[in-house]
């Protein structure tokens, strides 16, 4: 029983990393009704960008690396917008989808070429903190990720519902033509959405790097897949949904692994996705 509870809690905490990625996917979809498949790769790319500060100032504290990743995420987000959306005919839904697939592969290959595929150590935060209740343990670094996910959700909701930018974003999301007629610069709002999600991606990538202890190009594809699953299960466009679904997928994954083994684990996660698509296509939270 303890093993089961531990598996669930480990999964819930690890699911926080999926939630962070899911938030980015869902925000872009919520505003533009487009999927940015390069989001997880861009987030990991931003985390790598954070390491650049160590080239300039060796021994820089972890917060400086995180800050650099945060800013790098914003820049990469804007570049992704420019290359995959701004100059691409959005009327063709396949065009931006394929351009983001291309961007995913491009970011992946850039990372591989720069690092020769070698994992890069990432500064950890609270990695030595373990909350223990007898045999039951909770990882401090993953608690931090979960906490940051919740803070990001609150910050994003505040941005969307308490600021003029948020109002404009919601207007563009609901009625882009009407928003344009009201004087809202749709392209600018879309670019801002990518910059904001990029900044968030920078945090997500850095926290994932910190919780894994290393960055590797191996992270991008699984995070993309898990991020998409989380977005669909949470409800496309729902930020709270992405968080709940992230935690849920993490927990299910660990439980499936506990009972059915690692080789069947992802099979059951996919079945869970299909079950949602069939029985609750709008996801847990309808936006």
């Amino acid at each position, binding site marked *: 029983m303890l093993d089961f509870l531990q598996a669930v809690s480990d999964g819930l905490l690890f699911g926080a990393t999926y939630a962070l990625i899911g938030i980015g996917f869902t925000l872009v979809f919520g505003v533009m009704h487009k999927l940015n498949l390069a989001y997880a790769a861009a987030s990991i790319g931003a985390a790598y960008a954070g390491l650049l500060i160590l080239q300039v100032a060796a021994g820089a504290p972890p917060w400086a690396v995180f800050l650099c990743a945060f800013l790098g995420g914003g820049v990469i987000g804007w570049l992704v917008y420019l290359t995959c959306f701004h100059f691409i005919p959005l009327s063709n839904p396949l065009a931006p989808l394929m351009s983001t697939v291309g961007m995913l592969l491009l970011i992946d290959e850039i990372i591989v070429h720069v690092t020769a*595929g070698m994992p890069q*150590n990432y500064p950890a935060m609270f990695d030595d903190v373990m909350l223990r209740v007898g045999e039951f343990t909770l990882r401090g670094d993953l608690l931090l990720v979960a906490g940051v996910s919740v803070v990001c959700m609150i910050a994003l909701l505040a941005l969307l519902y308490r600021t003029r930018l948020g109002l404009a974003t919601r207007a563009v999301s609901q009625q882009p033509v009407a928003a344009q007629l009201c004087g809202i610069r749709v392209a600018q709002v879309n670019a801002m959405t990518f910059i904001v999600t990029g900044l968030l991606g920078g945090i997500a990538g850095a926290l994932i790097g910190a919780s*894994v*202890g*290393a960055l590797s190009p191996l992270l991008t594809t699984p995070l993309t897949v898990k991020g998409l699953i989380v977005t669909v299960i949470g409800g496309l466009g729902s930020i709270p949904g992405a968080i709940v679904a992230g935690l849920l997928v993490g927990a299910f994954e*660990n439980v499936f692994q506990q009972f059915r083994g690692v080789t069947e684990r992802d099979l059951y996660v996919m079945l869970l996705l299909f079950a949602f698509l069939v029985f609750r296509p709008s996801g847990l939270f309808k936006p």
Partner: protein
Amino acid sequence: MKKIAVAVALAFAATGAMAQEKTIRITGFGAKSGVVRSFGINSEAAMLAAADVINKQGGVKLADGSKAKIVVDFLDDRCNAEEGISVLRRIYGTDAVVAVGPTCSNVAEPLFGILQKKVDDKGDSGLQMPVFTDVAIKVGLAKISEWAFRNVPNETTMYSSLFYWLKTKYPNAKTVFGGVEEDFAHSRASWYAVMKDRAEANGYQVLGNSKWLLNDTNFATQVREMKNANADIVAISAHPFTTCGVLKEMQRQGVKPKVLVGLTSSSSLETLQGCAKQAEGMIIPTSFAPITKEGKAAAETTAKFKGAADLHSMAAWENMFILKQVIESEKISGDKGQLQADRRKIRDGLAKLRETKGLMGVTKRTEDREADKPYLFVQASKGEWKVLHNPL
């Protein structure tokens, strides 16, 4: 005016000599993209470095007594079976006399399958191209084709020797628990067919094993299984990225076995860069450490070509010198019209070898075209791989 005429004549003569200079092409192939890119980079660097040394010494002697320079190409197979097969077909279409590669066992296995199984079998239209593998290490692959040769360490011998040595060094250690990267051909085969088997053969009780995948990042469940087993020896058959992930999780959960054993491919800089602290004390058998004069020189020369010396890349270095020996002993013509005959001679020459000179000593060649390389045990200590024991 006279001086100019002489200079022009000399220039023409030099150009003529350059044009007549013979070359022998050896094409390497392996992963130069994707997460195992470093293997390809290191193999290519080692091949280029070895060719540079050979060429500076005058090159290779051909059948007619003339000398030829070695030209090295290196193609990327992305550690992908289809790509690997396509790359080999491309190499077959060039004037390369032999191919050196691949990096990944999941490429080597199907790739050897497209070679002619038995030489002179008229009914077999498989490729007649000698392939001399430097990295792909999964046990027993060369037997697939008589055109396939490998200069990779024999893991069965190495782990057998390691567990035998551990038995004497740690007499109180009785049990073993394994950790295996289930979706990677080499790691999987190394646990099930080598480590587990050799541990049992040496009288250890194998309590079980945990499994994970190559791109997993959460190892809490697997390490809990490891903890519950409470084995004296934990043997991890995985590549550096997940090895480090597991070692970090072991530290978190306080799993401290008496002995930690790792996979041959993890005796690299990558592991130490990723988790030197957690890997402290890990023991791995390896077929290369820069302990001999030749080994140190090879490592230094390879570094000049931007490659790192490890058990895999140094096998590529050795392959180049073995091929030089074979080219000279088998009297390769270097004539493009005789390309297929030259390839056959190289195959026959490689098949004839009973031992070769390696960087760590003499390597014995087996009947099934594999190598029985000298090896030693290294241990992670203070951020370095240090020689722990030389069993030979």
